[in-house]
């Protein structure tokens, strides 16, 4: 359904968004069919998200975070068949991760005789929402040329220096800053393209 002021570009972006949402469902279907490559892809796709919820959201230590990480993916593997909406795999994994983190905190509090009603490390909803935004940005990054993906990921997510990035990608270190800036411009375009406002009420996008 066209919105007032809508244009072909926005419609195309919505189609891309829908096509992308379809990939989660397709990935889940392949996993459910016993495709090991699909499972590897699923773990790869959500590993940063699960890790970030545990470490940044709930501020778990490495040992607890590792237990949570493995527990979450084990549960995902076991329960994928019971997922009602395959396209909702991401919020499902997020919710599962939160639950496992809370269980871990409660278990730790129980062991230390702390008050179970006050779990100080449960993150604010804002923090978890920010992680969802971060996931969206990473999804948008995946649409960029490979060199942009590499540079942005290495610099911002892996904390690599200009020199290290230059050495690894065979680029002069002096050009990295300007490349980062150009790649961020491309990322902003890609990200905004993915966040086209939904059609007005009742206007299911077809």
């Amino acid at each position: 359904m066209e919105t007032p002021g809508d244009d072909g570009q926005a419609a195309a972006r919505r189609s891309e968004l829908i096509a992308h949402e379809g990939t989660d469902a397709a990935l889940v279907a392949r996993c459910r069919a016993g495709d090991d490559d699909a499972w590897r892809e699923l773990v790869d796709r959500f590993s940063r998200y699960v890790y970030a919820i545990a470490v940044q959201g709930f501020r778990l230590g490495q040992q607890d975070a590792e237990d949570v990480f493995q527990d979450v993916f084990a549960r995902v593997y076991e329960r994928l068949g019971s997922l009602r909406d395959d396209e909702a795999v991401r919020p499902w994994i997020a919710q599962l991760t939160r639950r496992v983190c809370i269980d871990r905190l409660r278990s730790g509090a129980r062991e230390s005789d702390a008050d179970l009603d006050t779990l100080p490390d449960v993150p604010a909803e804002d923090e978890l929402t920010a992680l969802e935004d971060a996931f969206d940005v990473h999804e948008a990054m995946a649409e960029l040329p490979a060199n942009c993906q590499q540079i942005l990921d290495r610099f911002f997510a892996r904390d690599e220096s200009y020199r290290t990035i230059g050495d690894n990608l065979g680029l002069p270190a002096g050009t990295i800053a300007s490349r980062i800036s150009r790649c961020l411009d491309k990322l902003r375009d890609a990200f905004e393209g993915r966040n086209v406002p939904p059609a007005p009420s009742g206007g299911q996008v077809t």
Partner: protein
Amino acid sequence: MSNYDHEQLSRLIGMLPPAPEAWVQAAQELPAARRGLDQLVARAEADAAFRAVALADLERALKTEGVEPQPRVVEELRRLLAND
């Protein structure tokens, strides 16, 4: 339409660093590990001598089945064979 600037985008990129590679690999090998465990448990159910050998050296039993004997997997096999 969002209005994200470079600073916001870079902050969001930085919020999702990669998980440790070994964790990711262990999770990715879950289906193979589960299959290996299932086969080992099935054999142990059918063959008491094999069960005793496997219990005596869980890591070796897993390796023979082609499963990487990560501590978590070894523990799971120990639990399964104990319940057997």
